[in-house]
């Protein structure tokens, strides 16, 4: 049962991921990305990482991908196709990534036994309460410091993104000049 689910999910992930990097219509790409991420979220639930799956759906899919889609709407017209890449470049990308995959494959085939894989996590380990206990813990296992720092990171991003993305309206620039004119 689990194996079948795994195969279905992984095929879904790979299929949509392939679509992400090949489809000519950029909006389709974004939708495919969404599907691929959904597949991974399912996989996380299979692997007893409930909280991660939630975050994946809520933040990744619900936030980031939606954000990407907004950006696509702002920068492209409906149905517009992206410029296709030249064939040599595609070939080069294929060579590079297949080399990388061969590297991964060979490495795992040879050295995966160096990882000890005795334990299996339980549903308890990835649950919201376990995660919350560690995230908000000040003890020796606690991860409250990175949790706090992430808030600084998010704040910084908001400030920076607003500054950069903000349109420079006339009114903002010419405050002093317009006053002088009056």
């Amino acid at each position, binding site marked *: 049962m689990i194996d079948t689910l795994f195969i279905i999910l992984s095929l879904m992930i790979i299929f949509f991921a392939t679509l992400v990097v090949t489809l000519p219509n950029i909006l389709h790409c974004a939708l495919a990305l969404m599907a691929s991420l959904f597949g991974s979220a399912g996989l996380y639930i299979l692997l007893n990482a409930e909280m*991660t799956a939630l975050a994946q759906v809520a933040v990744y899919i619900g936030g980031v991908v939606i954000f990407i889609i907004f950006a696509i709407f702002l920068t*492209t017209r409906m149905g517009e196709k992206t410029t296709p890449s030249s064939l040599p470049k595609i070939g080069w990308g294929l060579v590079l990534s297949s080399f990388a995959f061969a590297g991964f494959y060979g490495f795992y085939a040879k050295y995966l036994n160096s990882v000890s894989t005795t334990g299996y996590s339980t549903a308890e380990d990835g649950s919201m309460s376990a995660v919350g206990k560690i995230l908000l813990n000040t003890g020796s296992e606690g991860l409250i410091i990175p949790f706090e720092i*992430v808030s600084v990171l998010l704040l910084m991003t908001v400030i920076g993104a607003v500054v950069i993305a903000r349109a420079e309206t006339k009114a903002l620039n010419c405050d002093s000049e317009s006053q002088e004119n009056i």
Partner: protein
Amino acid sequence: MTLHRLLLLSAVNFCLGMYGMVVRRNVICVLMAMELMFNAVIINFIAFAHYGNGHATEGSIFPIFIIAVTACEMAAALAIILTMYRKMHKLDVHRLDSLNG
């Protein structure tokens, strides 16, 4: 479903992302390919958390942070993309070559 297969799945995702980053011409497409790579890393973490004999909860917490950071990176990238689009009306990576040498 074994650790080996999960890692291979993540490797496939990672390499697809790599392919997209090197090949796609639209900047947003490049960023989406990047998302695939991050996703691959998350799969790695979850797989190790499940099969490894270490601290499983830490393994599922790190991806949450990764997701948060990725959101920040995407926000930064998209902010720059919007400004760039306003300025140049093009999002083609090939055209980004005025700085060279």
